């Protein structure tokens, strides 16, 4: 039984001078999957993507694409689609010529190219803009052209390097959902790089969190969010309160903070007395900044209903517990 194979990265390292960009990374991405490489800048996520593409060569390790050892295969022969942060469109070519480029250099007959380009323009919702030049398009449209161009050669693997980070917030949101839908239609094994945890959670079915050239944790968005393996992941994925208690660092998500007007009656729960310092009403939720008796501050995100029930005012004394928290020893270095 032949199982369809995706991307397999085995013990791969890449150094730039003294800087270790990717440090003995092992990674499996299943065929047809949509994976996100998530991490801060300098975490090695883009380098890892470029290694998979063949735009960089690893110093050690092995990269298999659809089961074939591609470690030293030329970029041109890997049959990948790559989408760059700043689109990298051919400025002297029209949208049509850009999308058809990969087919043209493969000497595909003109008629076939035209038909395929028409299909792709439809797919990326740019019908009617085929004869424009890139500089006549908006950022979001350019990135869709780049995507269509990458898909034209029917790649086995689609790689996107921070594809939406140069775009406006609203366009970015639209394109994320659009990419998800597109992936459902096209089903090509896709890896994209992002530093935006929300973007990763929204699009990917598999998230790989990277830090300092290593993988901190990987899993489904829910696994990553609910069971962060390290303080780094905890802090990187979503807002979090970092509290100090004795010899421990305690991480509490703002929405896990429970605010009550009187001390809880159940014995054994850790309770803090706090004073309301600031109230930020965002409409869909209310963020309350609390100042604990020992001077530490704590953020609580309350729903509108909870906030209305409590009727909090600035300066009021309240009691806090947490629904969920994770603690790591204090000497744990992030």
């Amino acid at each position: 039984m032949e199982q369809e194979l995706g991307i397999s990265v085995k013990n791969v390292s890449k150094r730039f001078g003294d800087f270790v960009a990717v440090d003995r990374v092992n990674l499996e991405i299943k065929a047809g999957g949509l994976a996100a490489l998530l991490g801060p800048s300098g975490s090695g996520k883009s380098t890892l993507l470029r290694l998979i593409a063949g735009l960089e060569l690893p110093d050690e390790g092995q990269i298999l694409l659809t089961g074939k050892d591609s470690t030293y295969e030329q970029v041109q022969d890997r049959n990948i689609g790559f989408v760059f942060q700043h689109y990298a469109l051919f400025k002297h070519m029209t949208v049509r010529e850009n999308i058809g480029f990969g087919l043209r250099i493969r000497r595909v007959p003109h008629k076939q190219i035209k038909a395929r380009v028409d299909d792709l323009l439809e797919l990326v919702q740019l019908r009617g803009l085929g004869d424009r030049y890139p500089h006549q398009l908006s950022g979001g449209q350019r990135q869709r052209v780049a995507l269509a161009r990458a898909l034209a050669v029917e790649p086995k693997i689609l790689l996107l390097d921070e594809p939406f980070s140069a775009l406006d917030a609203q366009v970015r949101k639209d394109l994320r959902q659009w990419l998800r839908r597109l992936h459902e239609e096209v089903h090509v094994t896709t890896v994209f790089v992002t530093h935006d945890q929300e973007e990763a959670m929204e699009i990917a079915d598999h998230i790989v969190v990277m830090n300092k050239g290593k993988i901190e944790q990987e899993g489904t968005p829910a696994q990553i969010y609910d069971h962060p393996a390290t303080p780094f992941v905890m802090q990187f994925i979503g807002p979090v309160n970092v509290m100090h208690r004795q010899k421990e660092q305690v991480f509490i998500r703002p929405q896990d903070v429970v605010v009550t007007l009187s001390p809880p009656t159940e014995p054994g729960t850790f309770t803090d007395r706090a004073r309301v310092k600031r109230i930020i009403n965002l409409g869909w939720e209310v963020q309350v900044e609390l100042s604990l008796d020992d001077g530490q501050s704590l953020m609580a995100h309350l729903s509108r209903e909870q906030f209305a029930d409590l009727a909090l005012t600035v300066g009021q004394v309240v009691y806090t517990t947490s629904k969920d928290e994770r603690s790591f020893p204090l000497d744990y270095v992030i």
Partner: protein
Amino acid sequence: MVLYLLLMLFLPILTLFATGFSLPPDRFWSIATSNLAWATYGITISLALGSAVCNGVFGTLVAWVLVRYDFPGKKLIDASIDIPFALPTAVAGVVLTTVYSENGILGRLFAPGSPLGSLWGEEGLRLAFARPGVFIAMTFVSLPFVIRTVQPVLEDMEKEVEEAAWCLGASPATTFWYVIFPPLIPSILTGVALAFSRAVGEFGSVVIIAANLPFDDMVSSVLIFQRLEQFDYPGATVIGIMMLFLSVALLFVINLLQNWSSKSG
């Protein structure tokens, strides 16, 4: 601004026309189309065109190397590209003549009896005091144009655009011809046109390196100078006007090129 242009540009040109066209048309025509005048136009334009094309090819190459590669002394080389602009052209003429004359470092290689020179027969290939010398001088004085017009365009070109082409399956050669070269064409052509008009008008270095023999290696600007030496001001002016028309025609071509490049850029 208008006054500046009036004083510096339009007034001198108008004076040139006024002097030239004060001649009766048939006399103007006979000077402008005399056998010698025709010969100099031909020599000037063909040699200038040749040197401009030569600079187009090698200038692009130099710009490419300066932008894409790092090597010791790169800054120095980059700075010395502008020397032909800074050097008085007469000095350039003297230096080039020294290098390319029969006894010069390079001229010697093509001298009669030398292995390379023998390829051109017993007489060898005469560089200085002949057409090749004029060609060399023209090429020297217009060398910076193409390099300086192509360099910024190459610098602006993102590496990612090339990588995108590779990912789509394009070999480095295909990438060059389809992706890198086309955006360079307008700036190369602009540089070539500038170099051409500079070479057409060149006098200082050419008059020194050439033998200035009529019908052999005499260019238009030298002919004008000879007319002036003989106090034949109308003759000089007429040939000057003919050269001016040539320059205007060229500027027109440059303008077309710039329009074209801004449209597809």
